[in-house]
């Protein structure tokens, strides 16, 4: 196998890596944000439940959750390896993203909420128009971190047989005995993916930043 074939075999796993990420990250964001709002504004009972959710899904190794979802849950509903993997990752990510959003919400001073209420906005309006827009900006740096983690953690779906980058590197490495080259290639591809993503998010952060005179 020549070098070109070798690299392109590994690189063709990128579509799965990206696919898993594109399911896990946004679903994690959606669920995480809803749960974070419940955690911060939903009262004591809600906060306890959310705390439990966070503890469970941040406490289980993602791989274990993947196996549970793929081998157990899909006895009833037939989930493909790709979906089972993406969804489990999404669930784990939702717990971390909940903490990110929660941190951002709490960082926006409670006084902002009070000032909004003083103008006559309802609690919901105050959260939506005053707290959330400010929280979003605070959440971007830690979220960029989470995005990088998911891109790399997407490799876990190899255990279910999804032909993503890492799995392909393993197979071609073992088959050709050129292990170092295989894993280096995989590393380069992951690096490029993470780099591109963090750069993009950086740009977003700059675009959204609120002007001020220091």
């Amino acid at each position, binding site marked *: 196998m020549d070098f070109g074939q070798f690299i392109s075999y590994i690189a063709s796993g990128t579509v799965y890596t990206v696919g898993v990420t594109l399911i896990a990250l946004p679903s994690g964001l959606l669920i995480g944000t809803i749960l974070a709002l419940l955690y911060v504004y939903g009262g004591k009972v809600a906060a306890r439940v959310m705390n439990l959710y966070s503890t469970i899904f941040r406490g289980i190794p993602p791989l274990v959750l993947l196996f549970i979802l793929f081998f157990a849950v899909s006895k009833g509903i037939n989930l493909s390896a790709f979906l089972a993997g993406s969804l489990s990752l999404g669930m784990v990510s939702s717990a971390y993203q909940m903490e990110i959003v929660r941190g951002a919400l709490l960082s926006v001073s409670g*006084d*902002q909420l*009070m*000032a*909004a*209420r*003083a*103008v*006559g*906005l*309802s609690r919901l*309006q105050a959260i939506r*128009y*005053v707290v959330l*827009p*400010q929280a979003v*900006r605070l959440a971007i740096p830690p979220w960029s971190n989470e995005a990088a983690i998911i891109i790399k953690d997407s490799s876990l779906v190899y255990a279910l047989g999804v032909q993503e980058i890492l799995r392909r590197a393993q197979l071609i490495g073992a088959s050709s005995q050129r292990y170092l080259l295989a894993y280096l290639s995989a590393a380069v591809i992951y690096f490029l993916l993470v780099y591109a993503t963090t750069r993009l998010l950086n740009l977003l952060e700059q675009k959204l930043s*609120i*002007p*001020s*005179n220091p």
Partner: protein
Amino acid sequence: MPEPILTIKNLTKTYGQNVIFQHLDLTVNEGDTIVIIGPSGTGKSTLLRCMNLLTRPNEGQIWLDDLEITAKGTDEDQVRQHIGMVFQNFLLFNHLTALGNVKLGLTKVRHMSDEAATDKALEELSRVGLADRADHYPGQLSGGQQQRVAIARALAMDPRVMLFDEPTSALDPELIGEVLEVMRQLALDGMTMIVVTHEMGFAREVADRIVFMEKGYIVEEGSPDEMFNHPKFDRTREFLWKITELYGKKEKEAK
């Protein structure tokens, strides 16, 4: 016969074991400027926050015009549309321009069209002398400018009463004057105002009544002349003397 706009009866607020204030009575008539003075930590801010229901009192009642706002089932958001509040730390919405800050209540609470809201907001900003800073963000404004925008934001809702919680305490001395000037003009225009402050010059010149609070009680209240020149209680005289000394100096420096 001036009508009472805000009436407070037997108001008590506790926090755990601590009594912040108890059995307070206060009547504010339309057009009055009431200045509340007293040592820090005596519950003045808490009292203000009870007036617009940001905090709930434990006992007692508050009426806004004829409506008992402390009654069960009152729509608090509704009530707060008619009571404006200005905070010590300005608390402008950081992600919005000055114009955006003033407009928010108009578009989201009053449901005004964007155009109408912009017009009204610019009007209020002119009133406080900041129409030319409409597109500036809070981070680009000085403290005095931020506070004036905060006043415009509160005024935009056409409140019946304006509450000021130590509006100049967080400002550099040179910037206090511009804010007090706006407030003075507001009083002259007939706005009903309740101001917690240490600014004695303002109290003497602008207040209709001064209320001295200490340790959770109203010690004494009266006109500026009465309070400064013939106070009934020694404690009142003592406090006013001390604070005039301290802040009189600050005022001289500021001028």
